């Protein structure tokens, strides 16, 4: 039980820290662009969530009713963004600690940065190639299909990286590369039309902002985890240094 408790502790500390850092980065780099794009949302009657997200049958499920609760703009909206960032920071932290402990444990902040790069590649870079970050008022393919592709891509990229780094043969490394490439050979679900009132340069800036803030989030998460683990490594054991 102490392994579980210590792993959760490690993820919570690192996730809390990285989530707070992430909120600061987002409020400077991504949220202003989201707010700017929302001004086009009013001008885009085609952006009816129900209409393009699901097949006709499920349209009612995810229609954003006027009555549905949403945080008020300003402090309340920022508060919920912090909350979501911290909660997901801890969620990603739990995945990172599980993967890295099974691989032998992170030895220090510098190795944590390497793990952070891996997390960035798996959760931001690979899915973002096929499904670039979207702004409000942008068209998108069926939500469920995109979620399936996103999850499959994340899984294949993680497995591929693990095979390359920890596989003991060239064959496994080749298989790993194939797994990383496969989702992009299949291709992500694309919308019927890319027509949008959002200017292309606004979207381009948003893609860069999201990718860079996520990179920093993952590097901070990995480094914080390596740093904290080095100080509380007792119950989790000395790192096995399998990441030679």
């Amino acid at each position, binding site marked *: 039980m102490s392994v579980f408790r210590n792993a*959760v502790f490690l993820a919570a500390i690192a996730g809390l820290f990285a989530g707070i850092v992430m909120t600061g980065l987002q409020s400077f780099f991504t949220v202003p662009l989201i707010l700017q794009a929302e001004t086009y949302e009013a001008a885009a009657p085609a952006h009816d969530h129900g209409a393009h997200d699901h097949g006709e049958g499920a349209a009612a499920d995810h229609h954003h009713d006027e009555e549905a609760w949403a945080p008020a703009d300003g402090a309340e909206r920022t508060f919920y963004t912090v909350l979501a960032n911290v909660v997901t920071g801890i969620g990603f932290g739990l995945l990172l600690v599980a993967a890295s402990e099974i691989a032998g444990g992170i030895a220090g902040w510098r190795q944590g940065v390497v793990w952070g790069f891996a997390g960035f590649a798996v959760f931001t870079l690979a899915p973002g190639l096929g499904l670039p970050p979207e702004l409000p008022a942008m068209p998108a393919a069926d939500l469920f299909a995109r979620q399936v592709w996103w999850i499959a891509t994340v899984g294949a990229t993680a497995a591929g990286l693990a095979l390359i780094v920890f596989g003991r043969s060239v064959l496994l490394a080749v298989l790993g590369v194939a797994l990383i490439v496969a989702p992009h050979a299949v291709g992500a679900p694309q919308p019927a039309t890319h027509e949008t009132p959002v200017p292309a340069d606004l979207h381009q800036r948003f893609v860069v902002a999201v990718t860079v803030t996520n990179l920093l989030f993952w590097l901070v998460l990995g480094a914080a985890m390596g740093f904290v683990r080095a100080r509380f490594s007792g119950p989790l054991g000395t790192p096995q240094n399998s990441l030679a």
Partner: protein
Amino acid sequence: MTTSTTFGALESAKSRVLPLLMTGLLGVFIIAVSGFAQMDVVHNAGHDYRHSMAFPCH
């Protein structure tokens, strides 16, 4: 001596895997709720975050 040490190491590696898998599952659950759940309230609360994380959201 060597045999028992090896056995001990294997045993401890084994006893670590289950709690670590549980840790990973907890992480998956948390990300699924905060990033993918389609409830309007969860969606609206995490709206800016979801766009900023590039989750396929809506």
